């Protein structure tokens, strides 16, 4: 086999191995799904509100929103608990109801993912505290 071809195969095999190991990492991280420990684990750091605070970052909300200057400053959530009642907060968090028609489709899809998150109640509680 030509030396250049050998190098090409070597690189391809190495890259495939890296991708397989990355997939293994993802599998291992999700292997404990049978015993959900998200809320329990994060709760070690504090109360239900702190679980919600962690969830806000974990779910990627801070890519578009900020709280107390942390995150994307274009859509501040400071005072959102004062501006919206519990129903409206839930609709805007999950891209449902009136919020659905006012948000881009990809954002609605992204928000919809949070509906199944075990920390959603804690997130709602946290948002309600932002006054």
């Amino acid at each position, binding site marked *: 086999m030509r*030396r250049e071809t050998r190098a*090409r195969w070597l690189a391809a095999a190495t890259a495939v191995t890296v991708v397989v190991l990355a997939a293994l990492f993802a599998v291992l991280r999700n292997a404990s799904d049978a015993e959900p420990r998200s809320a329990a684990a994060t709760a070690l750091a504090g109360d239900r509100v702190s679980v919600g605070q962690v969830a806000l970052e974990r779910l990627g909300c801070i*890519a578009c929103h900020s709280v107390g200057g942390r995150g994307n400053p274009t859509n501040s959530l400071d005072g959102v608990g004062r501006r919206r009642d519990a129903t409206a907060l839930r609709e805007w968090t999950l891209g449902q109801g009136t919020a659905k028609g006012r948000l881009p489709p990809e954002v609605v899809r992204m928000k919809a993912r949070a509906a199944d998150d075990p920390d959603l109640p804690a997130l709602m509680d946290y948002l309600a505290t932002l006054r």
Partner: protein
Amino acid sequence: MTPKGEPRKSATSRQALVWLGLYLAAVTLPLFALLPGSESGYGFTWDFAMALGYAGVAMLGVQFALTARFKRATAPFGIDIVYYFHRYLAVCALVIVFAHYGLLRWNVPGMLAPVDPRFAPAHMTAGRIALGAFIVLVVLSLTRRALRLEYDNWRGMHAVLSSTAFALALWHVLGAAHYLDTAWKQVLWAVFGMFWLSLIAYVRVVRPWRIARRPWRVTEVRPERGRVHTLRLEPVDRRPLQFAAGQFAWLTLRASPFAMREHPFSIASSAECGMFIELSIKELGDFTSTIGSVKVGETAWVDAPYGTFGIDLRPDASGYVFIAGGIGIAPVLSMLRTLADRQDRRPLWLFYGNRIWERVAFREELDELVRRLDLRLIHVLQEPPAEWAGEQGLLTQEILSRHLPTERSGLECFICGPTPMTYIAELALGNLGMRASHVHSEIFDWV
């Protein structure tokens, strides 16, 4: 290869496997170190995308090690293979990093933050710029020749872009900080990133400084046939250079070692005398077009020796076959001169392809070597003179078959020349029953 040579080959294969294992460890261990103590996953796609991002950045870091010319790491493969590996792996790493970005865009589009840097966290913008710089890097490297980008300019651009892209990618990782939920994980990745940044500093500063401490002097400039010039270089400190016949040197002329204007050339002189080296360089373009204007007394900077192409790594052969095209004769000349100095009496064959008889470099010295060695010299001319009775046209399997012995199992073959000639020779030798492990080729254009 003779039975005596087999343990050497398997040892080399073992070393190659060890280095490949180390590569995979360097890329994936920092990722798997993030597993203990983390919360459970956020779905396979999300975690897979993140893992690809971490692995991609680690691959970018190791890219700097691949071209750092660590002799022990490159020896089992050959430095040309390692440079090709670096090139193809860059394409693979780009695909992996792009997959990280693409999966997140598909899976959690809101997480990527706005493209407008005014409204996006700085680390997200850093990640985007790093990805863009990385794409430019790969495209420029793959199309350098088509774009007629001068080698020195490309290399400078490559160094700046790659260092910047890596620093930005590291900023992105530490800024996004997914999985880096404890201080020790943050420290681990900060140290990991700093290690690669230190390696860049080593390659760009420490190694040139070491080369600068050992200047060489041009003591002879000899014009040869076929627009070839031979430079004889001697170390100013008179410390001999230990090298093996067939190896090459990185040469810097008329520039500081820090300027990254070095070029690889095969050493053409005998390995039996390290008090000087000779580099035979053909005027082909860029740097080499000015080689004839080099003056005796000029300072040169030499980083050597490198390469695994040569007789000394296959010392047990019953004889050697050399196939050279044009200036590909340089490393072959080093091997022949070395064998002559050692008074080696093993049978040798040299197939030497050129276009015109008058431009056959070193043809008089090769006639002299025929007298000193058991050497069969077969010139192959594309445009032979009217009275030519030797081989003509391009090198073919028939030409090789006409001159090589029927018993070839103990022979080792070395090919150095233009890429098409190398392909033809490798194919022809294979058809003639030569085992691939006995055929060694030096790639001309790996930089």
